[in-house]
């Protein structure tokens, strides 16, 4: 989860998010390069006693400030396209989960083997126990096996929502009447938080997503228990 006064991304918990982090560093390096150049030129132009400051008709500088930006754009585009295609690779998921957005909660359906479904409401602030995170905790978490490719099919039952978990590098719009697909692998066990990322009404800020990545045997035990509870 995010911590107070955080500036950068959350620590990556999936291979795709790690790639996105490194690409962001690359793009930010280019941003600093251009910003330093522009700032220096602005200061140099502003702190001069010269009154005739405007160059007219210079072929050399026109070539430089056309070619250089084109080169910079290519340097940004190539890693960007690499990640885009990486995210789109055939990933052969081990598990498919449906995440449905409602006003104002998420519901998860695990229908690969049995029919397991449950709702996930935010835990209200007054019901939090010490150590829990305000506006981020949910009563039922989406549990997944760690280090397994997971496919999430995202949709909505009423208005637009968006299913996002920053640590996993995942965000997918939940559109009523449409099935959007995303996939990820949780590289390590843990609990990863996200929040609804498309304005959906009064409680848009109060429908968080909590993903819990545990080893496969514990995931299987959990899903058996959930099915038993549902059948009672």
């Amino acid at each position, binding site marked *: 989860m995010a911590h107070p006064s955080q500036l950068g991304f959350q620590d*990556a918990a999936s291979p795709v998010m*790690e790639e996105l*982090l*490194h690409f962001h*560093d*690359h793009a*930010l*390096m*280019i941003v*600093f*390069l*251009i910003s*330093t*150049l522009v700032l*220096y*030129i602005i200061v*140099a132009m502003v702190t*001069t006693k*010269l009154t*005739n*400051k405007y*160059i007219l008709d210079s072929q050399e500088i026109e070539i430089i400030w056309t070619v250089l930006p084109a080169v910079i754009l290519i340097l940004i585009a190539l890693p960007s396209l690499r990640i885009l295609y990486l995210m789109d690779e055939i990933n052969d998921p081990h598990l498919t989960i449906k995440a449905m957005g409602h006003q104002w909660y998420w519901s998860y359906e695990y229908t690969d083997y049995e029919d397991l479904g449950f709702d996930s409401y935010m835990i209200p602030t007054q019901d939090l126990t010490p150590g829990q995170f305000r506006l981020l905790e949910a009563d*039922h*978490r989406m*549990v997944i096996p*760690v*280090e397994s490719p997971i496919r999430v099919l995202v949709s909505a039952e009423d208005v637009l929502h968006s299913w996002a978990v920053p640590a996993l590098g995942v965000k997918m719009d939940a559109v009523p009447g449409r099935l959007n697909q995303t996939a990820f692998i949780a*590289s*390590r*066990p*843990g*609990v990863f938080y996200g929040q609804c990322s498309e304005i959906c009404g009064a409680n848009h800020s109060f429908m968080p997503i909590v993903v*819990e990545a*545990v*080893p496969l045997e*514990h*995931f299987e*035990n*959990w899903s058996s228990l959930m099915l038993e509870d549902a059948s009672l």
Partner: protein
Amino acid sequence: MSLAKPVMRGLLGKRLRFHLPIAFALSLVAAIGFKYGVTEPRKQAYADFYKQYDAVKEFTAMKEAGVFESVRPSGE
């Protein structure tokens, strides 16, 4: 006694020929500084983290701390 004629032309060009190389050099320094001060250490940090990472040990520690909903600590 007559004064030498002051330089009246090419003043902006002279200023640019002085300042633009410095501007490009500084911006390259900023980029290289960011690359070796932030980008490479971050890549190394992730590589080092996963080199020594024991998922079972970390999972057990988190489980005993009561972090998970699906798996409770051994005492419970």
